[in-house]
């Protein structure tokens, strides 16, 4: 029992020391930005998933690099640009729709054109 208590004490002390050492210097707002950016950047070494959810060393490195960029007052777009310039647009997850609206509007445009064509054809036929 005493050994178990010692083990858990060491584990939790180490856990908090480790968590405390990460991304030092970021305030609460900056940490929120870091989490948001990390949620929207794909792990380049993994098949799926963002760098927040990945344990790959490259994901940890990228998160640290993003933290440094936040501290250096880079905007979100500048950070996304740095990442996509290095790894390609593949690295960008959710925010990509804001950056390439045409890709996501294309199906809607196609639908509107189809409806127009069918409507015009039906009206002409009924005459």
């Amino acid at each position, binding site marked *: 029992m005493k050994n178990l208590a010692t083990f858990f004490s060491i584990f939790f002390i180490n856990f908090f020391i480790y968590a405390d050492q990460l991304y030092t210097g970021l305030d609460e707002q900056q940490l929120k930005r870091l989490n948001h950016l990390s949620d929207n950047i794909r792990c380049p070494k993994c098949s799926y998933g963002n760098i927040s959810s990945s344990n790959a*060393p490259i994901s940890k490195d990228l998160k640290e690099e993003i933290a440094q960029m936040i501290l250096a007052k880079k905007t979100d777009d500048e950070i996304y640009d740095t990442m996509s310039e290095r790894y390609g647009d593949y690295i960008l997850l959710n925010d990509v729709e804001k950056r390439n609206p045409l890709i996501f509007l294309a199906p809607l445009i196609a639908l509107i054109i189809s409806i127009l064509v069918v409507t015009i054809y039906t009206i002409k036929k009924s005459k």
Partner: protein
Amino acid sequence: MKKIIVLLTAVLLIALVWFFALSLNAPKISNVKTQEGKGLPSGFELLKLNGEKVNETELNNGIVLLNVWASWCITCLVEHPFLNELSETYNIDVIGINYKDKLGDAIRYLDKNGDPYIYSIHDYDGKYALKLGVTGAPETFLLIDGEIVKHRVGEVNQQVWDEEFSNFF
């Protein structure tokens, strides 16, 4: 009018099938972009495993083959005999980037498995490799006058060499 619509639908359908058939053979869009066309990152003071300073102009002149490796990397161990062969048989100069490794482990690894590198850069924290666009080990970069002309993510073996690198030598 009806005939035109039927014809247009048929053409559209054929175009769609053709487009999807082509996309089956297209390279996967999920691949991370390689670093071809770029140069080496600057602003780093690079040290060799023996502690000597790396002359960066050396890396930016002529043909340079850079191989990212680590003693903890299993695929690097698989790749290593081919790198030995490259340096011994083909007489090609290979420069290593020792990635996120302990100095002692790296030296022991080379002592045990042979050293195909003219020297290895000790990138102990992986920061140089990160800026270079490395996502893990092994990766290999071929540079001509400072420009990356080939970037291989993963192992280089005889087949990969013949297909992707040999025509540069």
